[in-house]
């Protein structure tokens, strides 16, 4: 089991990967990716019970579904650094003939990915379906999923959220990346959603809040609490408060870097703030 410093070092490396991937192809989504780096590292290094190899059915292990597929850079980096495919393949992000499509897909048989995402609002339903199959298979492992906060403006989520409570799907931990930003501005400016905690609770979910979503220890503690609340007849939601662009000072607290790549000089500054740890790809 890695210690906290090792997880922090890996997170710094993941941030370097994200910056270098989007810089190389001058496209992609660094902001949300950087904000979720700690969550992904904690999830894949510590939280999930995973098999060494990848198979689509994933019987006998925890599964993860990414609903806000545009943060593919952080997903690909952590998948590669968790051993699903060679880290050198990060070099092919968004290039023609690559398995690392702009948004994640199963179409190119990339190990670690079980569903295409990118068109928003679909991942909650998919994760719940996988959770139902776990129950049918008498597989006690859990389903984890991640959703953007802006993404919850898509109505399908609320169909799924209603379904989950109504059918007591209690083997899922759905995390919402609460960074308060979306493409056109802050979520409060674009479409205020009020209290997501109150909304999830009103729909019959158990809600766990992680207020320091860029702190590894806080994530591990909060996710352990969330896990302890599974299996009690209610679906579990984690509201993970993160800072978009975290770890690169000029990218933080703004929606400006949602879908914009850094130039050479900006990349250099970003990498300087995130020195190489376990090794660049």
């Amino acid at each position, binding site marked *: 089991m890695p210690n906290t410093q090792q997880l922090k070092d890996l997170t710094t490396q993941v941030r370097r990967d994200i910056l270098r991937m989007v810089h190389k192809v001058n496209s992609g989504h660094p902001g949300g990716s950087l904000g979720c780096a700690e969550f992904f590292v904690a999830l894949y290094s510590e939280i999930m019970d995973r098999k060494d190899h990848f198979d*689509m*059915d*994933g*019987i006998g292990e925890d*599964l993860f*579904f990414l609903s806000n597929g545009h943060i593919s850079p952080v997903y690909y980096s952590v998948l590669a650094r968790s051993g699903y495919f060679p880290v050198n393949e990060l070099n092919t992000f968004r290039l023609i003939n690559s398995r690392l499509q702009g948004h994640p*897909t*199963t*179409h190119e048989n990339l190990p670690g990915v*079980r*569903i*295409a*995402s*990118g*068109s928003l609002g*679909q*991942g*909650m*339903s*998919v*994760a*719940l*379906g*996988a*959770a*139902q*199959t*776990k129950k*049918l*298979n008498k*597989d006690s492992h859990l389903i984890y999923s991640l959703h953007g906060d802006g993404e919850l403006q898509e*109505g*399908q989520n609320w*169909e*799924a959220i*209603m*379904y989950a409570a*109504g*059918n007591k799907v209690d083997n899922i931990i759905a995390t919402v990346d609460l960074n308060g930003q979306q493409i056109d501005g802050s979520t409060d400016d674009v479409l205020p959603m009020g209290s997501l905690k109150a909304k999830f609770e009103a729909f019959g979910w158990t809600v766990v809040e992680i207020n320091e979503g860029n702190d590894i220890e806080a994530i591990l503690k909060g996710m352990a609490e969330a896990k302890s609340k599974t299996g009690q007849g209610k679906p579990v939601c984690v509201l993970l408060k993160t800072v978009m662009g975290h770890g690169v000072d000029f990218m933080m607290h703004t929606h400006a870097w949602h879908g914009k790549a850094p130039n050479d000089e900006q990349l250099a500054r970003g990498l300087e703030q995130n020195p190489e740890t376990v090794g660049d790809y």
Partner: protein
Amino acid sequence: MKTYTNTGNKDTRSGFGAGLTELGKTNENVVALCADLIGSLKMDDFKANHPERFFQVGIAEANMIGLAAGMTIGGKIPFTGTFANFSTGRVYDQIRQSVAYSDKNVKICASHAGLTLGEDGATHQILEDIGLMKMLPGMTVINPCDYNQTKAATIAIAKHHGPVYLRFGRPKVANFTPEEQTFEIGKALHLIDGTDVTIVATGHLVWEALEAAKVLNAEGISAEVINIHTIKPLDNEAIIKSVSKTGCIVTAEEHNFLGGLGESVARVLATNKPTPQEFVATNDTFGESGTPEQLMEKYGLNSDAIVKAAQTVIKRK
């Protein structure tokens, strides 16, 4: 001329229900989902016999498609059930991303397709669903003709790995497919041999094509009738072979001519063997309220329309 006997009118949706009941007994991986239309889709038996494998999702079709996609992960074979309109247009992006692009083994089972839904009118009578579904890469599109064939198709698609759109209807129609006939996806069925004109029909229009062939035969016109139950993948060979003999073709379907069977056939012929073709299909229009018979008459989708189309296309040879 070979003739077929109607063993008694039955609805194709009940064929689906019977097929699903059979699958419940024979394949423990089959699960079923329904969006508040259990009775209409004839899913009651499956629900009663396998409550643990049946999922009532409420009036939430987008969620139903996503749930079905997720359920395949771990080996289940989900059959979703709702009306054709809500199985396709309402959830197109969910099917596109979570099912087709993700190559998930989901069977989208769609009842009340086309005009023969009847009195509910155009909001529920989708005439564009074949086009929507056939355009999705990897999607198999099946439109069986009667009760027995719908039952056999339902059983057959469980054995096929990949997304399938299975389209059927509401009214009781002639049931003439032999009960024991197995269903082979993508393999057209040669129903009547003929030499003057080929009639390829799908769904409810197959029986109308058989009726039309009788009328044409009485006029001294020898019509070849082919049942194209699978629109994608299309049995190109059967179509090319038939028109090589007859030299002209009529396509018949309960669907808009834009995007339907006729267009798929036209493409095959244009690239292989250019052939005069007439389309029995709706003409870029919505439907309306009425009885199924009145609607099929008004929109030109019955045996009379097929006879006229055959007479027209023969003159174009």
